[in-house]
């Protein structure tokens, strides 16, 4: 447990070193909030000005894909939370399984998203010359859809990378002393989930009774 922590360079005490990674990640999450805040501002503007036409664009999204992905990602949050707590308690085996499960759910999300993209593309939902709907607020909705979901998917992919890194640390047999790394990873993973929780109603529930 905590006494296992190896103190490395700039730190003098284990107590300080333990808070460092979560502290740094929290600061970075502040950055992420403002990053996504920028595109949410675009959404608020476009929806406010677009009115009915904007919601009409939103009706074209596939709620089944969206809901399935919400379910998958929420479950991955649970497995990630268990993995983090298990690492802290030294239950390495449980942590390992839960990390693999998290990676599995993350990949499942991307696969579902891929099928959804295929459907969107076949229905000409990319703004441009062959766009299914009228140019205007509906096209703005879809500009938001593509930009934000791709940005989110990139975040998720980075998340898979950092969770994969924990598994790699585990392969070295080193997981238990890395509880703070697990905590930082979990914080980032949950941020990616929370962004999706906000995106789900914005993308899939708008314009639906």
């Amino acid at each position, binding site marked *: 447990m905590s006494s296992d922590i190896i103190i490395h360079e700039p730190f003098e005490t284990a107590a300080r070193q333990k808070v460092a990674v979560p502290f740094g990640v929290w600061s970075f999450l502040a950055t992420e909030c*403002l990053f996504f805040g920028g595109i949410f501002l675009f959404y608020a503007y*476009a929806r406010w000005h677009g009115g009915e036409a904007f919601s009409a664009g939103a009706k074209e999204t596939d709620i089944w894909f969206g809901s399935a992905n919400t379910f998958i990602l929420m479950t991955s949050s649970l497995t990630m939370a268990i993995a983090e707590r298990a690492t802290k308690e030294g239950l390495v085996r449980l942590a390992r399984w839960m990390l693999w499960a998290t990676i599995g759910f993350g990949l499942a999300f991307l696969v579902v998203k891929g099928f959804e993209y295929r459907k969107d593309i076949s229905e000409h939902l990319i703004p441009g010359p062959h766009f299914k709907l009228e140019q*205007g607020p509906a*096209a703005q909705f879809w500009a938001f859809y593509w930009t934000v979901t791709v940005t989110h998917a990139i975040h998720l992919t980075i998340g898979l990378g950092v969770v994969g890194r924990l598994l790699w640390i585990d392969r070295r047999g080193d997981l238990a002393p890395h509880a703070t790394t697990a905590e930082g990873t979990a914080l980032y993973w949950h941020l990616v989930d929370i962004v999706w929780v906000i995106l789900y109603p914005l993308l899939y529930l708008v314009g639906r009774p």
Partner: protein
Amino acid sequence: MSPNTQEGIVDRELRSPSYLQNGTTIRSWLLTTDHKRIGILYAMSITFFFFLGGIAATLIRLELISPTGLFLTNDEYNRAFTLHGIVMVWFFLVPSIPTTLGNFLLPMMIGAKDVAFPRLNLMSWYLFIAGGLLTVLALIAGGVDTGWTFYTPFSTLYSNSHVLLAAMGVFVVGFSSIATGVNFIATVHLLRAKGMTWMRLPLFGWAMYTTSLVMVLATPVLAMSLLLVVAERAFGLPIFDPRSGGDPLLFQHLFWFYSHPAVYIMVLPAFGVVSEIITCEARRRIFGYQFMVYAMVVIAVIGFMVWGHHMFVSGQSAFASLVFSFLSFVIAVPSAIKVFNWTGTLYRGQIRFSAPMLYALGFIGLFTIGGLTGLFLASIPIDVDLTDTYFVVAHFHYIMVGGSVSAFFGGLHFWWPKITGRMYSERLAQFAAISMFFGFNFTFFPQFIMGWMGMPRRYHLYAPEFQPWHVMSSMGAVVLAFGYAWPVFYLGWSLFKGQRAPDNPWDATGLEWQTRSPPPKENFDRTPVVTDGPYKYHPQDSTPHEVEQAQAPQVP
């Protein structure tokens, strides 16, 4: 010799080598996690970009000598000033003081061995280099013509230049800023030495801390606005395109939400540097330490609420303009407090007119002029008249070049003996500082006058009555260029032939001076313990009451 190292001096042979001798291969530099070495890597990189941006400035000033232009086409001129802006803002000014002096000094000033996340620190340098390469690539491919502001719809729908490459370069370099910011915030919170309370932090530490807050909270918004530009330009997604109901003003709001606070990213570190130099070279405690701290915090916070003053003529609501104008006046108050307090620090000091001090005093004057002309531009009726004239150009150069770059050079000289372990030639350095001050004023003061007369910015063909002012400005730029290039020679010379620097050549009180020059890799031979506030340049109660009361606890 400082008191800390005097008792029980370790044998020279037994002491660990300095950070410069601790590994001399290229690999040991490129994979280093030592904050001091990363500071040096950054210093070399930003020096390259400073001269790249300087070349563009030279082209601009040459071209403007004649009202009909000398040798550039319209398009080439656009690309020259865009390159100048992008390189100078994101690849020199924003990283300048924090990543070089900040990286080197912040951990030492708070008595730490390194920053909180040494590997993240190295990663930030590689991100900087990656972003720099993308931008250089954009330049080699033919350049960008949007101006540094990337305003839509021109940047997304019409420009035929390499906007995508440049935008991605700035996007990437933004994350290097964020990494530095996160690192510094964690460092100040977690790694202060025993006894180094918040109110004993040197003002440079506070400056780095407040700058980092702004970096972490503002830069992501720039990243998103550039991402949206890329989405619209590369993939044709209608985001700001008015034909689909988009609003180019939205881009301006997002852009300035970063780019106004970015001004404070550039100038807050300068405040820190100047506070260190003035106290040491005037042998005075800082006048009103607590208010200096509050002023920086207030500037960092209100800096987020004034971006709309860049948009008075863009068509935002009159009410919004009113509020932004008011807040822009408000932020002048803490800035003025700082200027008065620096001046108050000089009172009854024993001033040494050394090179760093000349730079610092130059900073105060130029920053004051820049700040006061900022109030002209914060007044809506005057701004409507002066928008996009050389008055604006002169104003922000007074803040960013007269202010920040002077402070950067001052800091570079002040800490040069600590960083390199060598002394530079004081006379030659004083000459550089003075030429920079006069060169700067010769270059930019005429721009206030011609701007007031109506000379628009970003034009290279102009009415002949402006020519005398442009020629004056270009002549001044020659002096200024000398002021920048000259230190390269004598500082370069000092690296090889300069006298060995003692540990504390200026008799300064900061922790960074209480160790060797150049410092060992761990910064200190023994971990420092802090028992007192900063700037103890004279004993308490040795001064008249009106000076003393500045040190008394202040109840806000």
